[in-house]
């Protein structure tokens, strides 16, 4: 079981470490000799896709990452954005896809744990979490088990840790049958003048290990996370990482206390390839060497080798460079919280990463090269093909519009996610202003009378599949819209780019085009990307997932008293459509659910129009005209109206301008909102819309107990609710029993 450092380096061993021949040659060159076994492990950990971004770096560099609001962009543990009054919001999103497929509860739980750690490593107290989940088709034999495990894992960790989960996504599609996606987002609040980063400074300073003990958890995990799945996955199972949210909560409190003492020079959480990545990062960033003595690393298993300690992915651990004069004070804090605190090394001036174990130097590598000279690939890619537009008349209309709407509102992708989010603590911390179920989750800024932050996570993978460039734009645009719909000014975003095997030019082409779309949209909508994560090789038996670049957005509400909600419309309010009649049915939920097809182009996003309408809606909400607001996305205006009715418990009577009824009701044209306006303000609102040049239409009034749209739809709100609320519990009903033993 334990492997000796003298294990000979064979071509097979190199390949097992996910390194190709060329990469290995480069390693020998940089090591200036054949690496030892431990060194090979270290190189492979630093150079795998997950840590090095070797396939994606070239393209990530093209994303807009700056703006006056951005304090720290990509490169740190999380992005940092100024929200005024000396406060900053710190956030990031990260995937835990492969581990969650293997062990859904622990995989999802440790995914949540990892992202929370990224946020509090920077000195921020986590205040909100989201989770973007994609599962295979509902009927696939594994789906229920995965949904059940992932949801309870997300909740199990976040609830115990004590962060409100205020949003997320759940989608089902056969292309995720063998490779689910679990993207976890966390945001924290900090003071602008007490942010901590990983760059070490000073020579001969103690390097301190904090938190939980090291076991053999996930040894080789980072390598696995970047490897394509095949049917032998069952055998390849490494030791699964088990999350301990209790220890993480103690670690949070201990770290924040520690930071307040001024003892911390640099700090870095141990994520993928734990000790290796964190130590190299601190040293390489600070132009320092690091010398570690593994005999001092707290371990929970016997006879751990240097290789295992360096690659272990045990959770709830941190590495820090400490001000030596503060050692006693710092240690006392960790003793109080019953966590490990051990000096395991020091910073040096030789730019070497030197590892000692049992009296032997088991690794001695150039630290800058480890950190910065990972191979960077310009992978071949082909421009994705496009689809020609399809006019509405090529799509069959439904026999019965009411029945179609009921069917859609109760379909797997559009039904209520209450079953999911009621398993998450959405209220803890006492600051939640908007729960899941609306457009964005909203949380008060503690210590401030009126400010709040809004959070949304979005992407429509079927659009990205149809047109990666437009789909990339759309993901950002929808996120922007969801924030705006609450009255938040979008501030910045994070991304989690989930794709298949980048060595396939078509996949790489999708990746490149999606990034181009995302970049353009972020620029146009002023939502710079401040952090993110790339997850490639999401394939099983050669079939890739739908390209899924998840966007997590954060917006600022100046005064939550004038915020809008999806369900705050009152009887008598006038309903306005901001935007124009829909015509785009290609790739719509209508097409998929009613016609059983997914064809044609994605809807186009006009970024100028998106911004103009968004700013108009935002101004209307902020000046108090809008009593309720909702963006129009999946399923079109009929779904959006139904969602508003269900949320407010009011009916509505609408008379839409209609050319093609099915397209008008279910078309998924972009940049559109529904705004409910108190009757008294309706004329004012209309005048303002005209003045600002934004297209709008007065479409109806709120009231009654039915949703009526022209002579097409006539359904009671009660029936809508029943259809909307029942799919998920019915689907999962049996599974609750099946996972009882866990």
């Amino acid at each position, binding site marked *: 079981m334990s492997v000796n450092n003298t294990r000979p380096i064979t071509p097979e061993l190199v390949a097992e470490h996910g390194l190709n021949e060329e990469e290995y040659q480069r390693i020998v060159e940089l090591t200036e000799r054949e690496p030892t076994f431990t060194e090979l492990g270290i190189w492979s950990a630093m150079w795998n896709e997950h840590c090095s971004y070797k396939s994606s770096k070239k393209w990530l560099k093209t994303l807009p990452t700056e703006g006056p609001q951005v304090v720290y962009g990509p490169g740190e543990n999380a992005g940092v954005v100024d929200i005024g009054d000396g406060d900053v919001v710190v956030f990031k999103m990260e995937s835990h896809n492969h581990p969650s497929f293997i062990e859904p509860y622990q995989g999802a739980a440790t995914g949540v744990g990892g992202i929370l750690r990224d946020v509090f490593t920077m000195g921020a107290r986590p205040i909100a979490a989201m989770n973007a989940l994609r599962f295979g088709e509902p009927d696939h034999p594994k789906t229920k088990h995965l949904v059940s495990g992932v949801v309870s894992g997300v909740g199990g960790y976040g609830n*115990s840790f004590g962060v409100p989960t205020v949003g997320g996504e759940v989608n089902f599609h056969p292309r995720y049958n063998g490779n689910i996606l679990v993207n976890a987002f966390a945001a924290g609040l900090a003071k602008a003048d007490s942010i901590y980063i990983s760059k070490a400074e000073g020579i001969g300073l103690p390097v301190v290990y904090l938190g939980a003990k090291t076991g053999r958890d996930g040894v080789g995990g980072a390598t696995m996370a970047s490897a394509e799945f095949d049917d032998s996955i069952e055998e390849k199972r490494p030791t699964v990482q088990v999350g301990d949210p*209790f220890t993480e909560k103690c670690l949070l409190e201990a770290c924040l206390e520690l930071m307040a003492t001024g003892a911390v020079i640099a700090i870095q959480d141990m994520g993928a390839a734990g000790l290796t990545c964190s130590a190299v990062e601190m040293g390489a960033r600070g132009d320092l060497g690091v010398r570690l003595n593994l005999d001092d690393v707290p371990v929970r298993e016997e006879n751990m080798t240097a290789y295992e300690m360096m690659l272990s992915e045990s959770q709830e651990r941190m590495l820090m460079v400490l001000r030596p004069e503060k050692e006693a004070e710092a240690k006392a804090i960790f003793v109080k919280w019953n966590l490990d605190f051990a000096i395991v090394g020091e910073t040096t001036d030789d730019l070497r990463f030197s590892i000692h174990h049992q009296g032997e130097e088991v690794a001695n590598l150039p630290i800058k090269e480890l950190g910065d000279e990972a191979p960077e690939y310009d992978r071949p890619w082909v421009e994705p093909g496009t689809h020609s537009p399809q006019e509405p008349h090529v799509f069959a209309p439904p026999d019965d519009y009411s029945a179609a709407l009921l069917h859609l509102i109760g379909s797997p992708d559009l039904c209520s996610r209450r079953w999911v989010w009621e398993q998450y*603590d959405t209220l803890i911390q*006492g600051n939640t202003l908007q729960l899941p179920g609306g457009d964005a989750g909203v949380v008060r800024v503690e210590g401030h009378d009126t400010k709040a932050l809004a959070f949304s996570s979005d992407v429509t993978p079927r659009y990205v599949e149809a047109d990666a460039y437009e789909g990339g734009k759309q993901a950002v645009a929808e996120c922007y819209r969801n924030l705006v719909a609450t009255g938040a000014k979008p501030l910045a975003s994070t991304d989690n780019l989930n794709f298949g095997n980048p060595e396939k030019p078509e996949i790489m082409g999708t990746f490149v085009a999606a990034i181009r779309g995302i970049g353009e949209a972020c620029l146009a909508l002023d939502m710079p990307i401040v952090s993110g994560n790339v997850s490639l090789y999401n394939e099983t038996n050669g079939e890739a997932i739908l390209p899924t670049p998840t966007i997590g957005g954060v917006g600022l509400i100046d005064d939550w008293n004038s915020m809008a909600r999806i369900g705050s419309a009152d009887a008598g309010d006038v309903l306005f459509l901001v935007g124009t009649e829909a015509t785009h049915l290609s790739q719509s939920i209508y097409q998929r659910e009613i016609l059983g097809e997914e064809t044609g182009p994605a809807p186009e996003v006009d970024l100028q129009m998106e911004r103009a309408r968004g700013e108009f809606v935002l101004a209307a909400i902020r000046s108090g005209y809008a009593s309720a607001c909702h963006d129009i996305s999946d399923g079109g205006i009929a779904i959006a109206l139904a969602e508003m009715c269900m949320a407010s418990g009011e009916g509505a009577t609408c008379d839409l301008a209609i050319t093609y009824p099915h397209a008008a009701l279910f078309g998924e044209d972009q940049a559109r909102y529904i705004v409910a306006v108190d009757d008294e303000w309706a004329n004012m609102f209309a005048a303002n819309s005209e003045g600002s040049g934004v297209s709008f239409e007065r479409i109806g009034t709120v009231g009654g107990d039915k949703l009526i749209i022209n002579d097409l739809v006539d359904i009671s709100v009660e029936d809508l609710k029943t259809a909307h609320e029942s799919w998920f519990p019915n689907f999962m009903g049996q599974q609750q029993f099946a996972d009882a033993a866990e």
Partner: protein
Amino acid sequence: MKATVVQFPGCNRDRDMIAAITKIGGIAPQLAWHTDTELPESDLIVLPGGFSHGDYLRAGAIAARAPVMNAVRAAADKGVRVLGVCNGFQMLTEAGLLPGSLMRNSGLTFICKEVILEAVNTKNMFTERYNKGEIIRCPVAHHDGNYFADAKTLNQVEDNGQVAFRYAEGTNPNGSLNDIAGVFNAEGNVLGMMPHPENLIESAHGGEDGRRLFESVLGVLEREAA
């Protein structure tokens, strides 16, 4: 009037509780740590919600055996008011300060949502600002809130008027026997409840039904002090 909030590692609604007491009572509560062997002089001791010690072994079990609990017990014996919410309720049953125990929710999952409560016994310093039989809103957020007591204990609890709150008919979220959401000890100075009144005390929370619980206990104590 002096309130003390006891903190345990893994508690996470302590901050919510501190905020509620501060906002409603006008002054911040004193804080105690699980290893303390003595408590500051207090009129009200609060055991907050969360996952003390991760809720490992059994919810609240390890916390119930912390050194500070001896001081809590001594204070309760002297008649000091003790309020345990959620994890605090679990600790109080584990410590034997309240009857019964809290088992895994019947649906087996964690559940966070608003429920409807009936104020059952309102002749008590914790609940006197509610009307008997009044229906109030209150959020729950727990994994182990399924109240259980053997038949004899349950009868005693019912007969002595120790039921403080019940989940209103048809809204029992966790399978609790007799829809019990909160119970007093026989003397009436210790209250444990699963729902979180501290999370529904201001307009930002979308309602204030939880507020009167704090107003009751803090108000009564003020009067006594006067």
